């Protein structure tokens, strides 16, 4: 048998090799975003013990300085204050400490096991733990190399969960925000509703409302403007096959009375699998919504297998 397919996937697929690839794909790297969840003890007494320990720990912690985190100052420019002092290279961020940059100032934080954070001017950041930081205002650029689902940035209007790799979050003084992803994926969550933003896409978030509908940054201005104004008819009219991601998010966000219009446009632009029915999507059948996601054929979405899927 010709081994070109085995070698570099050129030529006609070798059926056995293709079958093995499909069978083994779930074991591929970054398939296990849910691993930590799976290892969590589930017996009730463990939870009760954890609550008790947390209470004791809280009481003890109040008597001593807050713990250090893995984040260290790697570089800075201008006026940067950390915990009420001028920040210096090699200082370590403590849990709960406020990091504040002035005008025309910036700071770079690094944590060997997690990644790098660049904080822009007029920004305020606190680290809750190694994996959780809070951006109150300003601009944060994160390049993360820890496992998907581990590192999170909370903002006043949404929580950004890194699904591997690089993104920028801007938060206004009013608490609204904009997330732009340059590599990998980021999940944006707020009170049970969420948006998934791939490289090249962006998503606005508003205080009290949470993340909006993501869009690719190279999409038409007409679609972006319609999204900003919440004009569904114009969004549907301006959508192209490249905007399947935007329409997929709309499927679960619009009122039931508008869902049919969104699905019809989605099905007209995206090749929907044969086992997906219009009725199934309209009643928000989780499997059907999943299959619509599959139809987007987005690259590098292995994390999806371990995702919570709250719809």
């Amino acid at each position, binding site marked *: 048998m010709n081994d070109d397919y085995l070698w570099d996937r050129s030529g006609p697929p070798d059926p056995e090799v293709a079958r093995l690839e499909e069978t083994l794909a779930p074991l591929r790297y970054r398939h296990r975003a849910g691993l930590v969840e799976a290892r969590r003890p589930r017996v009730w007494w463990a939870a009760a013990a954890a609550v008790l320990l947390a209470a004791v720990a809280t009481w003890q912690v109040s008597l001593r300085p807050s713990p250090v985190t893995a984040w260290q100052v790697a570089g800075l420019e201008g006026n940067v204050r950390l915990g009420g002092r001028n920040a210096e290279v090699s200082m370590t961020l403590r849990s709960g400490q406020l990091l504040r940059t002035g005008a025309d100032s910036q700071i770079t934080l690094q944590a060997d096991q997690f990644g790098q954070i660049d904080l822009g001017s007029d920004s305020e950041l606190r680290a809750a733990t190694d994996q959780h930081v809070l951006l109150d205002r300003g601009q944060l650029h994160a*390049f993360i190399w820890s496992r998907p689902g581990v590192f999170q940035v909370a903002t006043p209007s949404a929580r950004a969960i890194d699904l591997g790799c690089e993104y920028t979050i801007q938060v206004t003084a009013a608490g609204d925000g904009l997330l732009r992803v340059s590599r990998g994926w980021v999940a944006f969550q707020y009170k049970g509703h969420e948006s998934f933003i791939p490289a090249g896409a962006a998503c606005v978030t508003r205080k009290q409302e949470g993340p909006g509908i993501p869009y690719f940054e190279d999409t038409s201005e007409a679609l972006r403007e319609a999204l900003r104004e919440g004009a569904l008819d114009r969004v549907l009219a301006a959508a192209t096959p490249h905007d399947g991601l935007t329409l997929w998010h709309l499927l679960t966000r619009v009122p039931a009375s508008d869902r049919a219009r969104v699905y019809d446009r989605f099905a007209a632009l995206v090749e929907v699998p044969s086992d997906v029915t219009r009725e199934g999507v309209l009643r928000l059948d989780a499997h059907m919504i999943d299959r619509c996601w599959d139809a987007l054929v987005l690259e590098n979405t292995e994390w999806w297998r371990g995702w919570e899927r709250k719809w």
Partner: protein
Amino acid sequence: MIYTGMNACATEEDDSLILAAAAGDRGAFGELYVRYARMVHGILLARVPPRDAEDLVQDVFVSAMRQLRGLRTAAAFRGWLAAIARNRAMDYFRGNWRNAPLDEAVERQHGAPAAPEDAFMVLELIKSLPEAYRETLILRLVEGMTGPEIAQRTGLTPDSVRVNLCRGMKMLRELLGGAE
């Protein structure tokens, strides 16, 4: 099949990243992580239980980052990183009875990634092959790398990778024939 210029170009890019990372550029190191994580995971998966391979990828890169400044040439990086991964897999079992290889059926009940039974069965068959074939087949069939990518990432010659793939696949077909 000719070893193409595209691979040579990718190697040059990697070399620049390796040199930058060795000089302390964390962004370059992060990019190397993105490019080499599948290779490291595949090497680990050929040796340790699937439930722990992903965590060990982190360990390998943390260890590599600490030692990178001691690396004298970019060309050495690939074999060096692969060696760190293999050593880490050996350390995993060495002197720690908790990590001793378990019966596969038992192992599946302890935090292994969600995957069909068939995936674990085929993985075990691959792990029974000679080491050179085992590693190359896992990189190809599990991690989804092509032969040229495997050669470029591991530092093996394309001819060696091709031979390993063909012979390994032949043996795997025979095992699968026997298993069915």
